């Protein structure tokens, strides 16, 4: 037939189309990942699984910091309709302007209208329950996400534990781990041990439907990454003792530091007045932050490690030992103490070291330090003093005075241990002698220490010549403390030089004429030293350093109460109550306790 061959045109056309399709199929299915990736984009949803932060225990295994649930309210901008807006604002109680601002923030944060973002960041369990009943009206545009925040069963040690915040833009730039809406510790242990506490965020891969519903996990969950819980920390703190110390310090301004001398573990660290850490949790902070941050008493400031005070007479203890170490005095060195050079409480007479410590003679130590500083190496006092002071400074530095501690929270201040160059700066080179600087001999003048320094000084005394760097964490997960805290730091090899001072410290408490008679504890040999720091601005500061028992000491307490007057009167009893509580578990003299608890230095009496 005429057009028979035209069938081949059709055959070729069919086969050609078939071949084109197969080539196209091969191109799409075999030779490119483009569509595979596109499918992933379309169907898969990656969800962050937040790891709960590590729990912080006290030394006895009691929970100091744990987690509790709070809620975030999320919104997906492109699912919100006009009706929602008005009704929603009324229900939640926010203005329309605020509503729009929040939604715009979400769009800006994710550069998308389709990605849900956090609309209200923190709702406590109770707050969420209030809106939960009406929330269904606004789903799925609005929905909640459970998060965890900190909770403090013992509402203590806020300055040590620190608090947690949502990450800032700077945090995210600094640490690539962080993503929007992560939490991070911003102070205290929370900050220092952030990497350990935060654990590891997990990822869950879900299949999502076209309308965004979850259709189960991708490939049975084989791609999912489990969240790793934050490592628990065991703190060196003793929650009960901390609680007790805070109670004693109520209505007093100052700080308490308690250390176990054998290990450098800090049992108690109080900065008073403080605040309730439960008020600084993510869901509560909005309500309380300004109240806490704007308080004139500077509640967020950690006096225990950051306040630099003159140590007062407690400094005499180390003066005595350094003097012996330098070989310029002995326990038997006798000085005339008649109050002629400096005001002195001791009855006029000639005294040796023991009595000088016991009764806190000022003149004795003034003369003792003169021997350290003015060694007579140079004819001129103006040359002799700078030389002697440098030697003294070298010895004193061994006690970490003038240096910050490598503490595991931020804020450890160095204090001030004056040296030759400092006085050269103040008075001019060659223009000062011992007589110019002598007030440092009794822990006044330029010398400044933090309560932590004073406590650490107590540790060296209790240990007769060594200490461990004070620290707040005993173990991180399964591991022990950081290496730096396991190193014994030898201050002095002249162990025997400590004995007469310690002997005198016991006399301070136990013997008639001692300045710390109020610090006695039945059946326990307490060694202590009072301090009363002259304060130009007001009442003297009351300072106290003690350790007990004398042999094999278990506890060192340093107490600093501002504007409380004589050291033995307020700081002493506080320290003794803490020691007694720790060593015996009870208080033998409730009257002493009552007197302390009722004393209010902050609110002046009517």
């Amino acid at each position, binding site marked *: 037939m*005429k*057009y*028979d061959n*035209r*069938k081949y*045109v*059709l*055959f070729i*056309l*069919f*086969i050609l*189309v*078939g071949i*084109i*399709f*197969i080539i*196209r*199929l*091969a191109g*799409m*299915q*075999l030779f*490119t990942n*483009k*569509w*595979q990736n*596109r*499918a*992933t984009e*379309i*169907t898969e949803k990656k969800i962050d699984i937040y790891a709960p932060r590590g729990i912080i225990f006290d030394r006895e295994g009691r929970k100091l910091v744990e987690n509790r649930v709070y809620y975030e309210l999320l919104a997906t901008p492109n699912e919100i309709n006009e009706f929602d807006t008005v009704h929603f604002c009324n229900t939640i109680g926010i203005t329309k302007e605020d509503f729009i601002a929040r939604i715009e923030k979400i769009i800006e944060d994710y550069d998308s209208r389709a990605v849900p973002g956090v609309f209200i960041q923190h709702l406590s369990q109770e707050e969420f329950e209030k809106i939960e009943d009406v929330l269904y009206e606004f789903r799925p545009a609005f929905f909640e996400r459970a998060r965890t925040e900190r909770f403090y069963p013992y509402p203590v040690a806020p300055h040590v534990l620190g608090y947690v915040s949502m990450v800032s833009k700077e945090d995210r730039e600094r640490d690539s781990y962080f993503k929007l809406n992560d939490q991070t510790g911003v102070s205290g242990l929370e900050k220092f041990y952030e990497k350990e506490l935060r654990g590891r965020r997990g990822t869950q891969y879900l*299949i*999502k*439907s*076209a*309308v965004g519903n979850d*259709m189960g996990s991708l490939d049975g969950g084989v791609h999912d990454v489990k969240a790793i819980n934050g490592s628990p920390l065991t703190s060196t703190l003793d929650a009960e003792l901390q609680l007790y110390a805070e109670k004693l310090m109520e209505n007093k301004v100052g700080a308490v530091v308690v250390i176990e001398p054998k290990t450098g573990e800090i049992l108690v660290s109080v900065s008073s007045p403080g605040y309730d850490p439960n008020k600084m949790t993510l869901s509560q902070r909005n309500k309380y932050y300004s109240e806490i941050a704007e308080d004139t008493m500077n509640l967020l400031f950690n006096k225990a490690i950051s306040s630099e005070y003159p140590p007062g007479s407690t400094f005499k203890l180390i003066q005595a030992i350094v003097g012996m170490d330098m070989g310029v005095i002995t326990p038997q060195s006798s000085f005339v103490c008649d109050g002629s050079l400096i005001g002195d409480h001791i009855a006029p007479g000639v005294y040796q070291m023991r009595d000088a410590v016991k009764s806190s003679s000022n003149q004795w130590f003034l003369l003792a330090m003169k021997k350290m500083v003015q060694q007579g190496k140079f004819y001129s006092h103006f040359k002799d003093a700078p030389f002697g002071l440098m030697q003294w400074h070298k010895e004193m530095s061994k006690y970490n005075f003038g240096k910050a501690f490598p503490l595991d929270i931020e804020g450890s201040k160095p204090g001030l241990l004056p040296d030759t160059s400092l006085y050269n700066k103040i008075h001019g080179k060659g223009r000062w002698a011992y007589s110019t600087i002598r007030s440092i001999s009794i822990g006044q003048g330029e010398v400044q220490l933090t309560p932590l320094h004073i406590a650490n000084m107590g540790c060296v005394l209790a240990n007769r010549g060594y200490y461990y760097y004070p620290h707040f964490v005993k173990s991180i997960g399964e591991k022990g403390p950081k290496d730096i805290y396991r190193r014994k730091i030898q201050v002095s090899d002249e162990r025997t030089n400590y004995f007469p001072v310690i002997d005198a410290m016991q006399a301070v408490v136990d013997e008639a004429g001692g300045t710390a008679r109020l610090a006695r504890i039945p059946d326990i040999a307490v060694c202590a030293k009072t301090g009363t720091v002259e304060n130009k601005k007001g009442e003297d500061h009351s300072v106290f350093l003690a350790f007990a028992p004398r042999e094999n000491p278990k506890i060192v307490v340093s107490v600093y109460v501002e504007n409380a007057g004589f050291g033995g009167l307020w700081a002493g009893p506080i320290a003794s109550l803490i020691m007694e509580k720790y060593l015996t578990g009870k208080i033998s003299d409730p009257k002493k306790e009552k007197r302390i608890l009722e004393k209010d230095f902050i609110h002046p009496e009517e």
Partner: protein
Amino acid sequence: MRSQKSYFANMDWGLFFIYLLLTIIGLINVNSTSNYSGHEGFFSLSNGSGMQLIWVALSFVIGFFILLLESTFIQKTSYFLYGISLFMLVAVLFMPAINGQKSWFGFGPVGIQPSEIAKTATALAVARYLTTINVKIDDFKTKLGVFAIIAIPAFLIILQPDPGTLLVFMAFTFVLYREGLSGNILMFSLFAIVLGVLTLFAEHSGLSAPILSGVLTGYKAMIFYLFLIGIVAFMMVRSFTRKRFRKRYLTTVVIGFLVASVFVGVVDFTYDRVFKDHHRTRIELFLGLQEDPDGEDYNRNRAMAAVGSGGFYGKGFRAATLASPTHGHVPEQETDFAYCTWSEEFGFLGSTAVVIIFVIFLIRIISIAERQRSRFTRIYGYSVACILFIHFLINIGMILGIAPVVGIPLPFISKGGSSFLAFSILIFVLIKLDSDRKEVLR
């Protein structure tokens, strides 16, 4: 009298088996695309895959009855069937619109699309008309007649409107080509398509002529280039042809240039002034002149992602994550986009298999048509092949992103009872006519 056996004696079992194979693939796929809850039986009435099975059974029964008919009876009732289908096409315009189309007669859960029936009826009518004594394709009158037979249902379908089915009626061009229509029409169509597409590209790429670049842009630049080509052709004719043909050739070049220029202008005008925004968007997306994977290009993009993510072996039966009824990423995934699900679940292997089966099917139909002594059967056979081919071309082409998105089902695979029945009738009629090929000379 013929024995009962002879009803099936000359039946083309090969064709029937390919049909059966596609039916089975279709049923498997319908089951996957209808699996809403995942807990239902393989075929359950509640999820729609059972309904499809009922339609398949019904199609077989009707098919069986078709085999019992006399071929001459089919031939004689061609015009009658054609008339009925026209009547239905008119009547359906008075039905309520579904998705903006008045194309369905609904009887409770069962629906019938008259345009499906019109395909078969038109094929029969064209065959009948062209085999009428004294009708020759070369006559202008005949051409007009055939054009009318095809154009009337096509026009009624435009009114629904159903652009997909309209395209199917283009299939008859190939049938007429086989019957003697000049191949130039196909060539012209091809040129027109190429020129049209080039014009759109020119408009978008900011094509401009080397001189007067500020003035001659877009389609004007196209005409400029056509003019250059014309000049070159003119020179070539002058130099390389014999003098006595020269005048004819030169006339062709000039007319060609004028027609092409007018065509380019018309395309540009139509595109800018006649087409609506959504038409333009669709065309631009298809030509890759625009990208909007989550908006206007949603369907095509999702479909291609579904196919592309199938890989070599596919994700497994009922394991599609995109073209899945519960996930719903691919719209119309049970009907027009059913091939997506198949492709995603059975990968390159399964997808290619379906393409090869279709090609074999089409070639088989043409072969059957060619072995007829009856022109009626041959024309009908060609019509069947070409109708199926257009469906195959547009549907899979659309899913693979190489044809524009047009709503048109993939025969036997897409879910849809009346569509399956219509395609089955198309095939059974062919099988019947073919089985009588030795009987008489019609």
